[in-house]
């Protein structure tokens, strides 16, 4: 009963929220309802607490989605990267679809998919061209980005289930098959996922093949296996974790955004900054979201990148020297790392970290994805 009335309080608080808010100062002034903690209602039992937490997390996520969508999703279903000339990319469309499916927003889901299919599904191999520029009103790079393809396929499968739309699933299966056919490759280091159809293979790069471990969207793999059973997604999943364990460098033992597999041993890719940065920050997010025990195990390498509101960082880090570069400045980056700590160390997430919003597409999307993971399978972190 107590939990229920609290839920009501939350709901009112969320619904009372007016237009989208970006400024940090406004988040501070925000009415702060009491967050129900697992220990709060011990008389109801752990199961009850989990249920209550999960319910609140779901409602919180849905309310936040409305704000996020109002900010970054155009009326015709395009997700706008406001930090990069308002372009859209397959990754963003994939995230948008995923969040809409999880938020049970069939209308927006449909619009986003419509837009995506109409503007990005222009390749004969059924992969998505990754970049669309509003200045040109057209695709400006026909190459694909594998994480975008995976995200869209995964999200379509989820949408198919949530909205009972077999047509979504059919599209998902087509894309998943295309990924398998074009991007999953055998290498000296096992099964790998090429970051794109062009430009990363052994013959394209001196130290190639080059991979991006943040393109292994680990929690999507079991769905991809259902969609395209002809391909060995399990082996790909496992090899991703293995590459993650061997592809860590420097005094801080961090994975780079781009990993070259062509040499004697894996190394940070030559043609890219040897950084743990805006790409790799998603690795702990996907590991936390994934239910595989090994994924949770791999999280331990990330838990100390940021240790809470009173700590330094997180930073983009030069993996070779371990040196801090610019600050990864955004609530979403912090929430990802807080989530990693929660999953790996059972350490609770600071309320302020959960509630802070970002004005920019990318960190705010990471924040939404973290909330999505929490409401879907990690309510204890809420």
């Amino acid at each position, binding site marked *: 009963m107590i939990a229920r009335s609290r839920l009501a309080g939350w709901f009112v608080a969320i619904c009372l929220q007016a237009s989208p808010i970006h400024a940090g100062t406004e988040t501070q002034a925000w009415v702060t309802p009491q967050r129900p903690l697992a220990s709060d209602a011990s008389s109801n039992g752990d199961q009850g607490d989990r249920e209550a937490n999960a319910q609140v997390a779901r409602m919180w996520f849905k309310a936040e989605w409305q704000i996020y969508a109002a900010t970054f999703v155009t009326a015709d279903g395009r997700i706008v990267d406001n930090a990069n000339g308002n372009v859209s990319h397959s990754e963003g469309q994939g995230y948008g679809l995923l969040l809409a499916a999880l938020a049970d927003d069939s209308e927006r889901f449909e619009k986003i998919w419509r837009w995506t299919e109409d503007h990005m599904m222009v390749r004969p191999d059924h992969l998505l061209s990754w970049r669309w520029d509003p200045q040109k009103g057209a695709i400006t790079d026909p190459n694909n980005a594998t994480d975008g393809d995976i995200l869209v396929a995964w999200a379509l499968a989820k949408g198919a289930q949530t909205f009972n739309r077999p047509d979504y699933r059919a599209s998902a299966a087509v894309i998943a098959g295309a990924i398998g056919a074009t991007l999953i490759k055998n290498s000296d280091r096992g099964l790998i996922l090429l970051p794109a159809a062009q430009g990363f293979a052994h013959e394209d790069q001196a130290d190639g093949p080059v991979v991006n471990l943040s393109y292994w969207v680990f929690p999507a793999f079991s769905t991809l296996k259902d969609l395209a059973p002809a391909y060995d997604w399990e082996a790909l999943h496992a090899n991703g974790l293995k590459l993650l364990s061997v592809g860590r460098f420097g005094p801080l033992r961090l994975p780079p955004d781009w990993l070259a597999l062509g040499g004697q041993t894996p190394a940070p890719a030559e043609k890219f900054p040897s950084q743990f940065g805006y790409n790799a920050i998603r690795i702990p997010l996907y590991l936390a979201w994934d239910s595989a025990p090994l994924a949770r195990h791999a999280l*331990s390498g990330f838990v100390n990148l940021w*240790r809470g509101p009173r700590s330094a960082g997180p930073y983009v880090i030069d993996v070779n020297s371990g040196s801090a570069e610019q600050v990864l400045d955004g609530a979403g980056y912090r929430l990802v790392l807080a989530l990693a700590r929660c999953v790996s160390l059972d350490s609770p997430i600071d309320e302020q970290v959960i509630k802070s919003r970002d004005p920019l597409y990318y960190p705010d999307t990471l924040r939404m994805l973290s909330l999505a993971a929490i409401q879907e399978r990690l309510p204890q972190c809420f």
Partner: protein
Amino acid sequence: MFLKRPLLLTAMLALAVTAIRSQAANSDEAPSQRPAPIFADAAADGAAAQVKAAPSAVSPFDLPASAPRPAVQANTAPWEFSAPKPAPDTPDGDPASKSREGEIDLTALRYFAGQGDLARVAAEIKRLREKHPGWEPPQDLFAQSGNSEFEKPLWDLFAQHDYDGVRAGIEAIQDKNPGWQPSSDLTDKLALAEANDKLVKASEAQQWGDVIDIAAANKMLLTCADVDAIWRTAEALAHTDDEPRALEAYRYILTSCTKRDERLATVQKASQILKSPEDLDALLRLGRRLPNGTSEFESVRFDLIRQKLGDAAAGKAGPEASQAEIDALAAHARNANDRGDQQLLGWFAYSRQDFVQAESWFAMALRSGPDPKAAEGLVLTLRGAGKIADAQRLAVQYAGLGPLNRKLMIEVLTTALNDPAATQLSPDDLVTLSQAIDLAKSSEGAQLYAWHLYNANDVAGAADWFRKSADWQQNEAAAIGLIVTARRLHNMRDYADLVAKYRDVYPKVAALDAAMGGARSIAAPRAAAQAQANSPVRLRGGGGWDKNADAIATTMQAGKVDQALAMLEERRSKGLAEPPGLTVVRGWALYQNGDWEGAKKVFAGLQAKQEQVEDAEFGLATIEHAELPAAMRR
């Protein structure tokens, strides 16, 4: 330049803070990580082991010059080791540190790495790279934590002191992962913890030789991080007649370790273990000066003096306190107005029968307010000094402070009661006394008070108090008192019952009964006994009733002793014969008038003439008893 300067300042400030923090994080300063130089080769061995065991520990010589250097300061303190010296702390003493000079200070970096705080490590690397272009950080920053995934459960077991579990865990991991090695951090700490366990067990079993062997083989046990191991080793050394090395162990703690409570406990332990007072003094002198100007170990020094004085006061054998020590404690007792010490000094003086000093200390202690023990001490002291009236007055005044004070008051007053030489107690004192006896259910007090009443010829009152005394605790004096009063009151039935009850318990009762001719002859017919009871002194003179004799007996029975005596004298002066029964009255009158000698002569005369033998012997027995000191009347 303008901008850079404050930046640099900030960085240095941050570094200084870091240095302080890392010092604090290391819980003890650098010398504490070196083992105690108890065993000959400890110094070199320990220094090597230190590097191995604590690679991430902050070494003091890595600190920038401007940073505080508590470790180095502690090492140059005036009480420098006299024993084999551990590896020098200064850079020039260590060949390896030569190359470190001028190099980059990694203190903060290692500290953050030790904390596992990647963000701060990264920020510190950035700072160092900006400051030293081209510099590359060491790749072993997390060498120890590289194993963390495997070792975490092992460390958890370690934290639970389950060392067998850790060993089993290592084997289990190695079974699955051939070639895997636990970190040296884990194996070193494990070996040390196991050795510590063994040392503690040997020490508990008082196997001193084993303790020393284990300690000698694991010198890294003997650091400030584990003073308990040093204490145990020192104890073992002392028990094996190696006091010099035991002393060295204590000295190490006092010169190297900083935790206040451990330092204090060290001197306390040493005081129990070291036999030589000089050795102990040497340790006490290692106390640091406290902000209030006293020495850190002053309390211990005083405790030792207190121990000696307390033992002496209690009559226990042991080392005697020197006059200087007594003076020191006396000064402290006065200056700090320490009541406990004032009393202790009082009791010590009392035990030495130095009543002047004792009175002064107890009185001083009582100036801070009433205190049962100080009051007891003062009363006893006054009594011991022969100031009976003062003792009585204060005994009454302090009786309410506690049961012991009440007991003492009863004792002091009842002693005075039956001592003809003592000051007579006032009626108020007597009321206070009787109430106190009742309150304390003092069997002793009751029988003494009863004798007082008996001697004042309040025989019935005496009987009541003898009864109370015997009820509270059976005792010979009360038994005799009951028998005597029953006899006086001619309650022959009671008399016979009492004699029967007590004759086998107290030999004196049998003797008394024999002296009084037994109850048989007088107790026989109940009616007669009762008649006698109604008229206890019935005298026959000549052929009929001697009216005058009867009058004297009646006067005497009314408690008018002086008048009865006057009548006896008048009768004698008239030349009237004194029948033996009346002589008995004379005897009692003299007795009750305090002329025990006179009474004794009268009773003895009757006895000699074989007249009124019963009464005469009873009278003599009574006087004999009354003449006994209180303590012997039991």
